[in-house]
Structure formats: structure tokens, C-alpha cells
């Protein structure tokens, strides 16, 4: 049986798993809590100290389940979830899905990390502070920059830190009111646009030119003495490396603006080119993407910020520093700091994972990561472009860095099926395909990022699935209409998600709106 045939016989775990409330049996429990610590004070006496109006009158409506039944429920749910370890996850482009070495989870999950309170004296936290500090030291070489903050809790949070640093910088220079504009590009990450708006900036979005590069004439027209900063992703989500990036930073610097690099897509650049070489002042890196920490269904993560030493005073407090006298310590002495971005100091387990990942690979390994990510992507691209109905954005570029944004526009025109239909079909082969690359500037888009973790065979299998789905769209439209049939669930009625009368975001909201399986309540 060839691989495609094998994948055709795939069937995802399907347990018809109830909602947890449907498993509840009054009186059952999975875990007991300790009773009173000693008999110096009875529980009743302690309860008597509470103000009467602040004691909960009715028990919270939580499910009651014994331990085995609860473990089984969550195991069923985990089996109804594929993840990187279960499938070829290259369809989640822009997210750098890759293998996350198991040893990193083990190292970060042990008590020496898990049981540390963030407010412990620095002298008792020398190990974890050393990991933060040394991770920064590694990034000096990886980014070419000088100072680091591990505080942000994800990529968008990293962008928030950058925008906050920009504001603190211009406040310090007395130009906060004058410098009120930020420039980004259409194929930069959504956060590069959405975050500066939260921070009170007027945002200008530079469209691509015919070649797919940010339009330099539009950029020149947007730049002015009001420009506080530019926020550029490179390579952009199209996978195209902006070869004129230094021209953009030169022009921005001429106007006095700060240059912020979004390095969420850095997986193809390690050891090849860096933030420093592109003359950016700051950047962020996703430790949960490029640097080997798993994504955990959407975090916890780290959007580490890196900056030139001149910008150190504006970084979030505290920074992790070292001196022979004090050892490793948290430095709060930054009077011009942009403030805090996150509670405490950052997501320590993710930093441990990233540190371990880099220390397992070294300079040669990091460069090999990028070389293979590029090789895999271009190999995959050639395979996809041979599929009927598929095309690529800005086809004048013969190669891409680590990912590429494609289009099913021709498929849509010829069969009526688009990217959302392909997405449903992919589930029937046990592979993942993310449908969201909005706004749909490229029609019927899909973005594929093979990263270095996937083998040639994986890429052959994945692209064979896409080819088979294309064939089905042309030759077996009925099958496509009914997909998925091998998934955990069948076609979900999306009308229920945008109508306030119909959506139910919790089980209690569902019970208030419906009497049974989506039968509207009367009256």
C-alpha cells in the first residue's frame, strides 16, 4: 500500500465525547484537599471571621467526577487532537510547526523550575536567572543585538513590548506627541498592525509592489518627521525575503525613526543574516516557534525582545544581569523603562526549552536548521506548483525562504471549491491545514511552512494529499462537499458563531438558549 492509500484509510479518533457536565454524578470527586492544618482553629471558627455577605450561598455548578472517569474524558479529548507529534503539521504556515525535543519538556518541567516562586530572593534563584542570562548571551550572536528581555508572553506581546519601547523612547526625547505614526507592511503579521493601534499610533500599511516587496515609493511617501517607528516582518508571510530591507531602514533612520524587526519568521535565517545586518534597532523572536518550545494549543510562549544597547534604558523592567559580586540578579533600576509588559519576569519554562534547544544544536546545528528549512520549503513549493488549480503569490520569485503563500484561485474558478473546502478534506487524511490567512489579499490563500523537522517523505505525503484533494475537486465533487467523513466531527454549522441569538460560549449559555441539542428555548 503506498502512502496515499495508507492516508486514505486514516480515521481520526472519535469518541462522541460528552460535554464534561454530562459526565457529572453528584457526590463524586477526583481529588481531595487537606483538612485543617491543626486544631488550634476550627474550620467553623475560621468561617466565622468572614463577612456574612461575602460567603457564597450556592455551590458553584462544577462537574463531579471520579478520577478514572475524568482522566478518560481528557484522554479522549487529547486523542481527538492531532498536534505536531501526530501529523505532518506543515499546513499551519507562519507558525513554524516543528519537532519539540522531549528532553526540553523534561528539563523545563522538573521541580527545579516548576517549584520556583518568582519573588524568591535572587540568591535562591541563581540557576534559573543564569538560564535567562545565558539565553540572552546566545542571542547576542544569533541576532547581533546587545540587550534582551524575556518578559513578553508571545509574539504579539513581543510587538507590544517593541511599541511600548518606541513610546518610552520618544517620550524621553520629548517628541512623544510629534512622533505619532508607525509604518508596517501588508504581509507583516497582523499584530504589527493591531498592536501599535492599541498603543495609540496611527498606522500606515505599505502594500506590496508587483514583485511582492513592500512598495518603496509608498514607503517614502508615508515616511515623515511624524514617523515614530517602522514594524517590518522579514521574510514576510509570503516567504519572500525583502532584499531592499536595508534601504528601508536607511530611509527610516534618516527621518529619525526607530526600526523594529518582527523575526517571527526567522526559521530560515539562522546563521545566514541577522537583525543587526539589516540595521534594525530592535526585534523580537518567538522562542516557541523557531527555538524549539512546543505551542501548547496556543501558549504559554515567549516573544523575546532584543535591542541595541542604546535602547537598554527603555526595555521592560526588570532585566536579568550578572556581576561577580551579586551573581545573577534582576535589575529594576531603569528609570526610563517602558514599564512592565507582563506579570513577574516571563515564562521561565519556555526560556529553559529554548536554551536547551540552542545548546543541543550549536552554531552548525542552527545553520543546518535554516538550510534544511529552506530546502524543504523550495522542494515542497515545486511539488505544490505541479498540482492542478494551485498557484503561488508573486510567481516571479523562483525561490522562497522558509514558507510560501499559495492560492487555490484557479481551483475555485474551475470547480467552485476553495481553500476552506481543501481544509475540510485535509482532515480526512490526518493532516493539518490552516485556513486563516486573512485578509484574503491573495485569493483562496494557503500558507505552507515545512520547517526542518519534516522529512522528504513527509513532504511527499503531504503534497500527495493536496494533489489528491485537487483531483477530487475536479472529479468527485460530491465527496468534497461531504468532507470531512473520517474526522472526529462532521460539517460544523458556522452560522452559530456570529449570531448573538445563537452563539453559546459556555455550557450555561447553551442551556439558557436551548432545551436540548440546539432546539431553541421557547418564550
Amino acid at each position, binding site marked *: 500500500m503506498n502512502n496515499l492509500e495508507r492516508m486514505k484509510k486514516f480515521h481520526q479518533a472519535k469518541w462522541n465525547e460528552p460535554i464534561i457536565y454530562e459526565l457529572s454524578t453528584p457526590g463524586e470527586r477526583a481529588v481531595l484537599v487537606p483538612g485543617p492544618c491543626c486544631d488550634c482553629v476550627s474550620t467553623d471558627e475560621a468561617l466565622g471571621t468572614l463577612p456574612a455577605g461575602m460567603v457564597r450561598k450556592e455551590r458553584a455548578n462544577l462537574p463531579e467526577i471520579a478520577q478514572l472517569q475524568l482522566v478518560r474524558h481528557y484522554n479522549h479529548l487529547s486523542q481527538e487532537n492531532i498536534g505536531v507529534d501526530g501529523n505532518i503539521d506543515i499546513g499551519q504556515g507562519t*507558525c513554524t510547526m516543528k519537532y519539540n525535543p522531549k528532553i526540553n519538556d523534561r528539563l523545563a518541567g522538573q521541580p527545579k523550575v516548576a517549584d520556583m516562586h518568582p519573588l524568591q530572593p535572587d540568591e535562591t534563584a541563581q540557576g534559573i536567572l543564569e538560564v535567562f542570562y545565558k539565553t540572552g548571551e546566545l542571542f547576542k550572536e544569533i541576532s547581533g543585538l546587545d540587550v534582551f528581555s524575556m518578559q513578553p508572553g508571545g509574539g504579539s506581546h513581543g510587538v507590544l513590548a517593541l511599541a511600548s519601547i518606541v513610546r518610552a523612547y520618544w517620550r524621553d526625547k520629548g517628541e512623544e506627541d510629534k512622533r505619532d505614526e508607525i509604518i508596517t507592511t501588508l504581509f507583516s503579521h497582523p499584530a504589527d498592525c493591531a498592536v501599535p493601534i492599541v498603543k495609540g499610533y496611527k498606522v500606515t500599511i505599505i502594500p506590496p509592489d508587483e514583485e511582492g516587496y513592500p512598495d518603496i515609493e509608498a514607503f517614502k511617501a508615508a515616511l515623515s518627521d511624524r514617523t515614530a517607528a517602522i514594524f517590518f516582518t522579514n521574510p514576510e508571510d509570503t516567504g519572500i525575503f525583502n532584499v531592499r530591507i536595508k534601504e528601508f531602514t536607511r530611509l527610516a533612520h534618516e527621518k529619525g525613526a526607530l526600526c523594529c524587526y518582527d523575526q517571527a519568521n526567522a526559521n530560515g535565517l539562522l546563521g545566514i543574516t541577522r537583525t543587526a545586518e539589516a540595521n534594525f534597532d530592535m526585534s523580537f523572536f518567538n522562542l516557541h516557534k523557531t527555538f524549539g518550545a512546543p505551542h501548547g494549543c496556543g501558549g504559554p510562549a515567549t516573544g523575546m525582545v532584543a535591542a541595541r544597547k542604546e535602547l537598554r534604558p527603555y526595555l521592560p523592567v526588570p532585566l536579568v544581569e550578572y556581576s561577580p559580586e551579586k551573581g545573577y540578579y534582576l535589575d529594576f533600576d531603569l528609570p526610563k523603562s517602558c514599564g512592565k509588559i507582563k506579570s513577574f519576569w516571563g515564562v521561565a519554562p519556555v526560556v529553559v526549552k529554548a536554551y536547551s534547544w540552542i545548546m543541543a544544536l*550549536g552554531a552548525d546545528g542552527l545553520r543546518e536548521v535554516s538550510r534544511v528549512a529552506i530546502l524543504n520549503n523550495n522542494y515542497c513549493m515545486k511539488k505544490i506548483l505541479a498540482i492542478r488549480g494551485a498557484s503561488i503569490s508573486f510567481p516571479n520569485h523562483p525561490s522562497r525562504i522558509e514558507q510560501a503563500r499559495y492560492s487555490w484561485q484557479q481551483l475555485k474558478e474551475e470547480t467552485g471549491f476553495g481553500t476552506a473546502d481543501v481544509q475540510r478534506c485535509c482532515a480526512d487524511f490526518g493532516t493539518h491545514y490552516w485556513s486563516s490567512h486573512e485578509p484574503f489579499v491573495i485569493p483562496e490563500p494557503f500558507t505552507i511552512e515545512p520547517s526542518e523537522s519534516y522529512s522528504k517523505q513527509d513532504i511527499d505525503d503531504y503534497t500527495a494529499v493536496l494533489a489528491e484533494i485537487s483531483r477530487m475537486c475536479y472529479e468527485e465533487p460530491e465527496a468534497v462537499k461531504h468532507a470531512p467523513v473520517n474526522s472526529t466531527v462532521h460539517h460544523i454549522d458556522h452560522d452559530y458563531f456570529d449570531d448573538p441569538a445563537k452563539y453559546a460560549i459556555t455550557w450555561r449559555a447553551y442551556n439558557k438558549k436551548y432545551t436540548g441539542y440546539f432546539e431553541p428555548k421557547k418564550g
Partner: protein
Amino acid sequence: MAKKMFPYIPNSEEKIQREMLDFIGVNSIEDLISDIPEDMRMNHKMALPEPYCDESGLVRHVNGILAKNKTAKELICFLGAGCYNRYVPALVDEVVNRSEFLTAYAGEPYEDHGRFHAMFEYQSMMAELLDMDVCNVPNYDGAQAVGTALRMACRITHRNEVVVPKNINPDTLRAVQTYLQPDVKITFTDYNPKTGRICLDCLKKNLTENAAAVLVMNPNFFGIIEERAQDIADMAHEKGALLVAYVEPSTLGLLTPPSQYGADIACGDIQALGMHMNYGGGVAGFIATKDEPRFVDEYPSRLFGIAPTSEGEWGFGDVLWERTSFANRDHAKEFVGTHAALWGIAAGVYLASMGPQGMKELGEAVLQRQVCLKKNLAGLKGVSLDKFSGTPFQEFVVDFSASGKTVKEINAALLERGILGGYDLGAAFPELEGCALLAVTEQTSADDIKALVSALGEILA
């Protein structure tokens, strides 16, 4: 010498690379990046330390560093202040470390159905605990949650000022200040120096019709229950402002949920619901509201809803996707990205493990230990427990100023005896110089209390 082998990179094998390059039609990987200009190339091999290529070497190296930590469990921990040394049931770790959850990401309902299902259940259980109808997928932390809750209030009321009491967590406040700059004005209001609770007279003076929201932290940073929260809600509502309540969810098995004293938006952090402290990295935020479009429309976060499928199963998906920055870059409600979703699954397992009775007993266990510790400290020379008259729940203020020793000195002496003393309040609250915040959890034992009392007896003698 053979080329180095990389266990995480299958296609680093030269023969395979050759095959792939031939298929692409280029000679080398270098040809695929030839457009990157020469003056942008790194001109040297990265100067990184020699790697630990074998896993055993890596483990020795990393553990060698981490061994320098002295954990809060190796010591006796009385630190709280927003992160709690709570017991994490084994089944919570079991579930969140399953690789199908751990290695999944944004996903789609058809192949990552389990993730949507688990998160919907988390939202549902949090909503019950909070007595609200809507709860979001976890965001970064409590600070992000309260920052967003206040921005939501501004959008809902079309006002741009928020009233914040001075008895909230200073760490949280600093992040909120960063988040609200530059367009949301914060007006501070005092706490009552006798009770430690929000000063209602001060609030009356500070609350105008410009206010979008009044924030209440309950229990507040001093550990004290804001028992007049309903009065505060009434005052806010009278001026057309919303009440935003920052609550500690682990207390809500026992304490009145925020909706029942008039909170329009509840928010906070779920670290205490099944997350290890992780040096502060076990935090995740929640926001909960009523099920009304004026609230639901204003969430920037993902909200997973339930829906029917063509075959009558439970289906799930994103509610009001167009709110988010994924869909609507420059017209989104704030922004969304990778936050802390896995901790939502953990908190879900935790809440389901405890059930209603467990959450109530948890509250009782914590309260009993707090009262017990306080009772045991009473009468110690140099210790005053009368700084505030308000009722504490799981942490409380201890005034050491009569002892002639600073909190720093006392904590250093406690650490010598293997005890992590309380949070030093003097830096963030100069009026509380000499005071510390001591926290208990259900893990605090009679021996722990005895050790602290005996150590303080020696230190303050």
C-alpha cells in the same frame, strides 16, 4: 570525517539533500538564497558555545545550572503576592503533558476538535465559578486580563478614564499602566488606612461621569476581602461606569462570585487553579462577562462556541472571528496571538477534579490556615497584626516596625533557617515600611507554621 548528524533534522543527510536539490533543479541550498545581498550576510560562523550533541550531555549541563536553584518546596514558602504555592494534582500534569495537547497550535475544529472541546469546557467551568455566562480562552496573565477589561469598559461606555484603587497588586498595576498608555487615563483612589479596604469617601470624590470603570481587586493586594464591593458597584453604576472585579478564582468556592456584587466584567489570573509557579511563568488571564453583545463584541481574545454538526455531534468554533486581529488587522479589538491556552486546559482539569465541594473545601482549608497562622503569630514580640482591620482570606499584613528590624533583615534571617518570608511591602507602599505580606495555601502545614513562629521568635528576640 562524516557530516555531523542532527537528530532533530531528518533531511540533514547529504544524499537526501542531493535528491531534493536535483528535483528543485539547483546545485546547492546557497542557490535558493542567492538573492540575499552579500552585505547582509553574516560573515562568520556564529560564535556559540560547543553544543551538547548527545542528550545525556545536555541534561548534565542544564541540570548543572538549575541545581543552583533552591526551590520554594525545598524551603518553607510564605510568599504569595500574585503567585501561589498551590498543590497541582498529578492528573493535571498528566493531561497537559500529553503530546497531542502540548504540541498542537491554532488548529482547526476538524482535526484539533479535542482542543476546542477542552477549552469550551474550561470557559464553561470558569463561568460557573464566576457566575458569568461568557469567559475567554486564557490570555497572557491577570495583568493583561485587567488591562483588556478596562479597555473593554472604555469602548463600551465611550469614556477614557478608569478609577483604580491603590490597594491592587503593584506588579499587575505596572503592566496595566503600560497597556493603557497613552489614551486611557488612570485616576487613583486611596484605600482606608484603618481597614485596608477601598476608601468609599475617597472613591466618591474621585468618581465622575468621565469614568468608564471602577476596578476592585477582591481579595485586594493586602489579602483583605472588599466586603463593600456592592456599594462600590452601586456608586460606579450611578455614574454610568462599569465595575471591573479582579478576583482570585481559587477563593470562589467559598467567597461570593463577582457578578453577585454587581461586577460587569470579572478578570484575574488562573495560576492558582492547577499551575505550577514556574518562577512566575505559570500565569494566565481570564475575562468573563454577561452574554450580551455590548460585552461580547468587545473581547479581543478568542471565544470558543458550541454548534451543531451535520451528523448531530457537538461541534466547536470561533465566535465572532471578525473581532480579532487575525481577521481584521487594523480594525480589530486590540490584538490576539499566542497566549496561554494550555493553562486553560490545566485549569479545566483542576476545576473538574475539585468539583463544587472541593473548591469549597479548598477555600476553607486556606482560610483555616490563615487564621491559624495569624493566631500563632499574635503575641510575638515586635510583631503587630493590627495594621488593617479588614478580613483577610489567604494572605495578610504583618507589621514588624516595632521590632527595630527591617523586613529585609528579617527575611534574610528567615532564609538562613530555610524559610521564604513574606513580600516586603515597603518598596511599593512607602506608608507600609516595615510591613510584610504573608501567604498560606492548602499546602501550609502545622509544622510550617511552627517553624515560622519559632524562627521569628528567635530573630525578633
